[in-house]
């Protein structure tokens, strides 16, 4: 990052000049196109005025200071993270006049991305074979629950339900307990990354061979890949696998141990005899390294419960970060269980700068906010979010008139007939629940009213 730039050429964004039509909803595709906006693409997000992106509702996030404001649909946390740096056009695709505008946009763009269930684009005759009639070099990228072929093709799907169906819940859960989900909307993010991988491959393909292609991501099979080695174990050894909580399937010990303080935890994982000896020294029990009960990996697997008690007795007197630091200093894998506040304030996170600050224009009344950037750094290509997420329909005029060249009369007609809009025509109910109530209801572990000061983001 400190290297001198030569003629600005080194830092040209790799997707500069690329136009993406982004008909996206929820997490997977909006995030993918948000990342591509970071990489320099012009992303035009299309939403229906009657059915804007579901992340514009506050259900799965929160408003700044928990205040819905006059335009709650523009203010939700997750929407604003995912859709950074895009343009917004609110266009009713259910009506033919709206689809005519979309067709013009497809003609003027490089990439068309959508995450409808497969029948929708086919029904509008805008699936890949039809879309390429509008634009021969078009790259099209689709994301659906199960993909357009097969018996489940038209089944609705969300990450929450797929997490069971794609096999991850079967191997997740406390030891001996019931199957569980973990995390949030897990498979959506696999889809995000697959969509960017597929689009970048397609761009290289077009660059090399002068032709577009269709990328078809089905979330179900991506999720199934997370248990690929378990599927092989079944195919060959007829083993179904079991739920083992936080233990390692073949190494011991490994677990999550309670530390000093309220709800503070540290994970520990030992991979060989040498690390076991290092752990024993670190916790002040060097004699255990010679103890026959723990002398080999298989002995430690057998006597895991005893080891858990020994490690927990040591962690109980330490903060989670002190436990992590001491074990890591001795060469033993350990990690404090960080929550969302730690994610913002931990010294390593701060030094790395995964979180970036987006400044909103004053009229939006949202101040500046930290959002997740990208987990990869490129040594010669400084990247950052290129601006806040747009308000609904913010770029209607710019896109239709400046880009597509619609005259004033045609634009006014589209506005008057409600094909274009800047407000949801059927606003979703806003979740109004105080932060204290969210804690009482168990939706939050706690609320930190001082967060702005801690982040240094006072208005």
């Amino acid at each position, binding site marked *: 990052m400190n290297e001198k730039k030569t003629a600005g050429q080194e830092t*040209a964004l790799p997707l500069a000049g690329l136009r993406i039509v982004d008909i996206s909803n929820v997490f997977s595709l909006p995030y993918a196109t948000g990342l591509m906006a970071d990489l320099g693409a012009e992303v035009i997000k299309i939403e229906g005025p009657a059915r804007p992106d579901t992340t514009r509702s506050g259900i799965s996030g929160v408003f700044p200071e928990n205040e819905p404001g006059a335009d709650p649909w523009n203010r939700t946390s997750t929407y604003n993270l995912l859709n950074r740096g895009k343009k917004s056009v609110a266009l009713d695709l259910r009506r033919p006049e709206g689809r005519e505008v979309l067709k013009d946009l497809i003609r003027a763009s490089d990439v068309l991305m959508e995450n409808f269930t497969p029948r929708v684009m086919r029904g509008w005759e805008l699936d890949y074979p039809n879309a390429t009639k509008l634009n021969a070099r078009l790259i099209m990228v689709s994301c659906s629950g199960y993909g357009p072929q097969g018996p489940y093709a038209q089944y*609705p799907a*969300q990450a929450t339900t797929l997490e*069971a169906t794609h096999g991850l819940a079967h191997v997740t859960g406390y030891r001996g307990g019931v199957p569980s*989900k973990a995390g949030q909307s897990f498979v959506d993010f696999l889809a995000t990354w697959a969509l960017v*991988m597929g689009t*970048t491959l397609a761009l290289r393909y077009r660059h090399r061979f002068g032709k577009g292609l269709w990328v078809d991501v089905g979330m179900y099979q991506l999720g199934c890949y997370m248990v690929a*080695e378990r599927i092989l174990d079944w195919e060959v050894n007829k083993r179904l696998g079991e739920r083992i909580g936080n233990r390692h399937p073949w190494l011991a010990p490994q677990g999550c141990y309670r530390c000093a303080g309220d709800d503070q935890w540290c994970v520990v994982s030992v991979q060989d005899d040498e690390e076991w000896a290092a752990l024993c020294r670190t916790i002040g029990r060097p004699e255990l390294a010679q103890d026959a009960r723990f002398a080999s990996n298989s002995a430690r697997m057998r006597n895991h419960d005893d080891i858990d008690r020994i490690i927990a007795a040591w962690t109980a007197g330490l903060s989670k970060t002190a436990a992590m630091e001491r074990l890591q200093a001795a060469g033993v894998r350990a990690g404090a269980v960080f929550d969302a506040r730690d994610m913002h304030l931990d010294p*390593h996170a701060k030094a790395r700068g995964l979180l970036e600050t987006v400044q909103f224009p004053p009229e939006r009344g949202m101040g500046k906010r930290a959002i997740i950037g990208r987990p990869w750094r490129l040594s010669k290509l400084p990247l950052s979010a290129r601006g806040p997420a747009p308000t609904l329909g913010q770029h209607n005029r710019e896109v239709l008139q400046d880009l597509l060249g619609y005259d004033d009369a045609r634009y006014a007609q589209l506005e008057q007939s409600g094909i274009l809009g800047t407000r949801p025509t059927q606003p979703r109910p806003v979740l109004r629940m105080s932060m204290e109530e969210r804690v009482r209801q168990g939706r939050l572990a706690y609320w930190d009213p001082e967060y702005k000061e801690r982040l240094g983001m006072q208005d």
Partner: protein
Amino acid sequence: MLPAVLDDLLVLDLSQGIAGPFCARLLADYGADVIKIEQPGGECGRRMPPFFHDDPHPEKSLFFLLLNLNKRGVTLDLEQPQGAEIFRRLARSADVIVESFPPGYLASLGLDHATLEKDNPGLVMTSITPFGQTGPYRRYKGNEIVAYATSGIMAIGGTADREPLQHGGFPAQYETAMNGMLATNVALLARDLTGLGQQVDLSMQEAVTSSLVINQPYYSFAGGVQGRRRPEGSAFGQIMPCKDGFFVTQEAGGGTWDEIADFFGRGELKDERFADPVQRIVNGHELDAIILDAAKERTMAEMFKTASEQYRMPFGIVQTPEDLAKCPQLEAREFYQEVEHPVIGKIRVPFRLWNMSASAATCRRPAPLLGQHNLEVFTKFGCSGAEIGTLRERGII
């Protein structure tokens, strides 16, 4: 038919374990010539279960097979000067190096990106580590559970009355691999513009954090910190038992609440106390009881079909590896491919992650045996037969 999209690339895979090798495999799936370079003793991935017929033989790890499909394999001791010299020779022709050593290790051998790019300005090096190349934790060791803990995802896994819970298996490793391939593609696109390669610094901790798009801005927008769910009274949207297994459904993204009530055949779900999302949280305990009772005589297969086809509800059932092995949907998506492995024999492997209308992933060869391609690779890079013999004697290959 046009060539595969990455078939003009030579990739050297120095990585070990799961994330790095799978990243390099994804490049191989799209046509890159990937040469896996292992220490003469073989990488740790060869010792990872499950094994073919549970035989812990270095050529029988099914996990290794999966992560190293489509690659050729050589052995080379980079710590011996002659080994490092041969690696430099390969690196001059390479487009991409994938590596997962601790930060600073390759520099100590004079094989870091800054050194190698002097002879090959277009070289991309994708470095995959637990905590990245910079920052106070850069030398920390990591693995699946350490990434889960430090990323923030584990703090919201499991129930509030117990310890935080990770996902089973190795999803953090797979997620990191996907980001590695993605970032490598980005670096290659940048190279097409500038002619210059660069180093990609990928942190496993950050790859997992990047999936927390609800959790992270909850704090930066309003100071909210999510935790683990309560053990009861909030099961809707979680895994629930039915007659022969487990299911999960949720209200967002499907039909109306009334339709959900009709699917479960329980009119009382339409009561005032369940009328909106807040009420359904507040009265979650009663809600759970009604749904559990409604599901106890119904099977997973029947509910999956009925909910998906007649009510258009997003509906999931807990499937096992056996179910996935027999799944007609995966069949229709060509998820499985067959390969012939010299030791294991013919085997069907989970392969295709997504589909493309052209240049789709192809399964061309099994994982390499240890040092299987030494002769052909080192000969191509200018080693004579006598030289290869000497290298072998000295344990360099």
